[in-house]
């Protein structure tokens, strides 16, 4: 697919808007439909599209595997970390009221961070799965 100009150019045009839409879904989840799970999948689809059109090696150059694996774990850590912080501040695990000046702003901060953690894990798991399948050696052990 490397030599098809229509695919290459349309991928280049679409790449940034897909990520922008993913970020919109991520951070607008409080007010409209959306949230971490959907946003993670949308952001991952941009990187997978890039890998499909330009090849898996170019995709790995754009988004290195070790960064991918670190971010994959970081999402869960962000989520759990919000719970730990709320515990340190003197409330229960994942009780966001204490995070802000008022209970409502605390809830806003907590939900935003937690959804960000979900999005981080989901998007990186999807990219990692695609990379693992795409770069898996096709020769079977016979």
């Amino acid at each position, binding site marked *: 697919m490397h030599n098809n100009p229509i695919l290459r150019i349309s991928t280049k045009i679409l790449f940034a808007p897909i990520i922008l839409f993913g970020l919109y*879904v991520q951070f607008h*989840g*409080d*007010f*409209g*439909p*959306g*949230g971490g*799970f*959907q946003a993670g*999948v*949308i952001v*991952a*689809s941009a990187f*997978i599209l890039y890998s*499909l059109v330009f090849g898996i090696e170019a995709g790995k150059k754009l988004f290195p595997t070790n960064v991918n694996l670190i971010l*994959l*774990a970081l*999402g*869960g850590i962000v*989520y*759990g970390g919000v*719970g730990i912080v709320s515990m340190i501040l003197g409330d229960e*695990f*994942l009780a*966001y009221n204490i995070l802000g000046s008022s*209970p*409502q702003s605390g*809830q*806003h901060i*907590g*939900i935003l961070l*937690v*959804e960000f*953690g*979900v999005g981080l*894990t*989901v998007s*990186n*798991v*999807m990219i*990692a*799965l*695609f990379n*693992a*399948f*795409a770069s*898996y*050696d*096709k*020769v*079977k*052990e016979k």
Partner: protein
Amino acid sequence: MISELLINAFLVTIMLSIAIALIKTRTVIFTVILTSAYSLVAALMFITLDAVDVAFTEASVGAGISTILFLAAMAYLPKKEEKSISSEFIPALSCVILGGILIWCSFDLPEIGQLTAPIHQHIAPEYIKGSKEDIGIPNIVTSVLASYRGYDTFGETIVVFTAGVAVLALLEKKNTTKKNKSQPKQKIKKNA
């Protein structure tokens, strides 16, 4: 009312025809594409039920990313499905019986949107009131998902993480064992 009925009938007909086509097809790529199409129609179905968040998830996860992952995994499968079932009678009979039981049970379900249904009486009113007053977020789905049911979502995130790591470990292991197998051979060749 009549337009809603027409839309639902239309969607159900499409779903049913996709399902029948899925049974008939023996080519793996058609199965993947048809499953994706089925998910997309299911997403439209969720929109008619006013469940926009679920529809969004179904469209992006069910129709989008899982299709790509299936296609990526499909490269290691044979192109055609082998017809291994000797008799089609018993599977068909069990499907009909199970479907009959499910349809029979569905008569006991409350009507969609009925206010007196038990599901709307339990803790849902508290969430709907609390989402506005305690959390201050217009989207109730997000406030339930991330705040009221924060533990569940934490578990879900860990499940996604664990599943991803497990698949990576499985695929990675094969790669390294192959390298270990091939490396000694090269050394032998060099020595010779």
